[in-house]
């Protein structure tokens, strides 16, 4: 019974492979529970919206669709850049990876900027979180929660960028980047849903 007493070549890789599987599943489960959180609020929104007061409720103007569409395109675009950032990292193309990641972060920040403009416009029309009935409650809660996720994502990606500059990840071990990409895609995809239910229907 000579148990793994001497760490040998490749054992560390074995360790990485196994912990990676654990961490990947754990991270996906985290995303699932986050999805449930969003779904619950979306259920609340749908429930209130269909409670027979008409939508938008009297006295409420919806946020402008033009800016909303542009903002959506920006966020979806950042998803595409993030995807290719990871692809390039996998292929060892570090410079292109870094630029794409920076570009992703900038697009994310732009999205938040667009969101801020949208909020200011609504505030100017006296549509607020607490003072505008169920529209204000559901719109600001859901988009605010999503915006908070984007903000966290920006911070997360910045940390990943700094880490990768310091050589934390290499071609064999880059689970952190995979997780970051998963998270960023998740935030994008949530916006597909939120965009549809708030701006399109």
């Amino acid at each position: 019974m000579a148990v793994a007493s001497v760490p040998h070549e490749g054992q560390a890789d074995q360790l990485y492979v196994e912990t990676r599987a654990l961490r990947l599943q754990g991270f996906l489960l985290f995303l699932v529970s986050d999805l449930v959180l969003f779904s619950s609020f979306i259920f609340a929104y749908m429930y209130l919206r269909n409670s027979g007061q008409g939508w938008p409720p009297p006295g409420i103007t919806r946020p402008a669709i033009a800016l909303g569409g542009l903002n959506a395109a920006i966020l979806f675009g950042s998803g595409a850049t993030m995807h290719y950032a990871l692809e390039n990292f996998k292929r060892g193309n570090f410079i292109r990876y870094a630029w794409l990641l920076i570009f992703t972060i900038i697009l994310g920040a732009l999205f938040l900027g667009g969101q801020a403009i949208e909020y200011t416009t609504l505030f100017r029309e006296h549509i607020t979180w607490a003072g505008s009935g169920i529209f204000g409650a559901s719109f600001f809660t859901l988009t605010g929660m999503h915006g908070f996720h984007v903000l966290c994502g920006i911070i997360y990606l910045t940390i990943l960028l700094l880490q990768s500059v310091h050589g934390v990840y290499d071609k064999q071990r880059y689970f952190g980047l995979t997780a970051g990409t998963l998270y960023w895609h998740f935030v994008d995809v949530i916006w597909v849903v939120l965009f549809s239910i708030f701006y399109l229907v």
Partner: protein
Amino acid sequence: MESTKPSRGFWVLTAILGGISVAAIVYFWTTPTVQPWLPPEGGHPGNEVDKLFRFMAASAAVLYTFVVGYIVYFAIVFRRRKSDPPDALGVHVHDNNKLETAWTILPSLFVVLLSIFSVKIWSVLYLQQPANGLVVESIAHQWGYVFRYPNVKGEIPEEMHLPVNVPVTLNLTSRDVIHSFWVPNMRLKADMIPGMVNVIKFTPTRIGRYPIICTEFCGTLHSRMNGMVSTENGAIMVVESEAAYQAWYHRTQIAQARAPSAAEATEATAIALASGSASAGKTLFSQKCSACHALGPFSQRVVGPGLMGVLHDPSHPNLVDGDPATPANVAKILQRGFTGSYGTMPNQSENALSNQDIANLVAYLNTLK
């Protein structure tokens, strides 16, 4: 290894348990009332609920008798005895497909049976109640009930009178928090939720005084909304003969008419309603009314109740102030405003409405069916 065949004792026990089960079935089948288990039954469809109760209680008794009987029997008969060697093992049976299939299929069949029976009673409760009859509204508040009757002005607190054998449609809502309306003798309950109207339909068939009980927690004095016939505390449903009911009704009508409500203090000028234009009223409605009133059924409350069919809804023959739903009375509310259980509405001057505006609005509301 012992034999896997059941012993004689097992079959004797099964026979005994079967006997108890048959006794339980016979009891629940034939007992004239379910009195010791439920309060005296006072109306339809409470009697239907009792049928379901008999069925479920009999089935439960059978199932529970067998489960408990066998468990206790196994624990005694198959216990390890002092004489057994310390490492004695039980009969090693892992599976028995026939048995397992049987006890999956049998409960499934029972579930189907129970579903059919429950759905049948459910349809009696919800679908087969007569639509005509007396319409009463009850509004709960912290901490009590008030009742509105057709053509009786205002609200009658804590005592609900019903004629025997007349179908009743009860519209339930609340003024503040969630309450509930339960008359144990009628076996019926619905929550009274602010902003919503829940409906109970039933026919009292037995004269008597029945407690009305709130079963949703509603604040400090929730316990006070616990009608007790013995102490005359809380709200009571009085089911009486048609003659007694009519006498009470007329008495109440007169008594309530004499008590002027605060809204009546201001004298209203008569408005020529015939000149109203429904299309102008529609425009006006979207400007002045739609922020508080939905174009939905009465139960769809935004600030005030929904106004679809306000003049034509048979389940709401009364306006919020208790007067019958006529164009003149609607105009009266628009002139005077309203303060009461259903909220507060500004009066004519506060809403900046001209007499012609009111006529237009009434004409428009009359078109909503």
